[in-house]
């Protein structure tokens, strides 16, 4: 009976541990707050070509667009934006190769409800020309020679794509 009790305790601990893990659903994007839209211009730090949801990690640039924002210990503050899986993203032209570390780009995202610095992509990604940040307070979509990659959801007209307005940040 003792062993049975132990088994029960272990099972409960495992379950509790699993439930306590910060939960971020990816299936329905319900964990992302669609009421909020954050717009960033940042520098790519890495791309995780996840098969289910490709993630681009980036250090946000400061409003002057002269450097990336850093915390007290001088470390860049990194955000993640995730989107469709690798295969679909590659078809849109988004991959490890097209977004190498150091790429300056702008993106709108719906942030996680739990406050972690990550979100789901909204609309196109805007790539600045190499090593050319936008003017202070602006994003890559106004920089001469920028490239818009990936269509806006449900969109796809001929008019020039722009970043959506920031909401709730």
């Amino acid at each position: 009976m003792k062993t049975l009790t132990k088994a029960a305790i272990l099972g409960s601990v495992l379950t509790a541990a699993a439930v306590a893990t910060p939960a971020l659903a990816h299936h329905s994007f319900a964990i992302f707050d669609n009421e909020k839209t954050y717009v960033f211009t940042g520098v790519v730090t890495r791309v995780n070509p996840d098969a289910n949801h490709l993630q681009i990690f980036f250090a946000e640039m400061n409003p002057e667009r002269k450097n990336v924002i850093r915390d007290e210990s001088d470390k860049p503050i990194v955000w993640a934006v995730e989107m469709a899986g690798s295969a679909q993203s590659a078809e849109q032209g988004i991959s490890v190769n097209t977004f190498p570390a150091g790429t300056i780009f702008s993106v709108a995202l719906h942030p996680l409800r739990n406050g972690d610095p990550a979100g789901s992509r909204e609309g196109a990604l805007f790539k600045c020309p190499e090593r050319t940040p936008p003017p202070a307070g602006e994003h890559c979509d106004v920089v001469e020679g920028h490239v818009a990659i990936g269509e806006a959801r449900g969109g796809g007209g001929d008019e020039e794509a722009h970043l959506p307005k920031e909401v709730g940040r």
Partner: protein
Amino acid sequence: MDLLPIVEAIQNTGFAEWMRMSRKGLPIINWMHVVAITTVFGTIFVVDLRLLNYPNASRSFTRLSEEMLRWTWGAFALAVITGLMLFAANAVTYYNNTAFWLKMGAIVLAGINMAVFQFLTFRSVTHWDRDRPTPVAARAAGAMSILLWLSVIFLGRWIGFTKGYNFEVPDEIEEDLFDFGMRLIEAVSGFG
């Protein structure tokens, strides 16, 4: 020990790349993994229930477990192979995912539970092979096995709902960012 470089190397193999980019490969392997793991659970569940004397003790445990466990092992082998393939495709994501490591832990515990049963409890099987209730240790092993395999399935599903974000900036890129920031400042102040 930092395994991340190894994990990244796995994710960068041609095979992993193929898994990510093949549109039908991933769902098919995923399906085989589900079939394999549910078959492992379902077949071992029959054995576990027999250890708990369900539906009764009238069938020979030795025969029942022999007939079942060959399916369990076959399915487990398929689960491991397809699991490794799925891991390779998204190695970095899994490496940073707590639920994934808890699932691996639960599988190891299930293996230990099985080994303890096989090498200790099972030795006295002639006394309880049929028509007699199983000993407490056998019942405990059965209950434990059910709990652990349920955990494996729940944790496995939980992986898909938890993202292991890796926000760390690789050293060389951080240096690059720093240089880059300095250059930008210089360039801008040069104009000023």
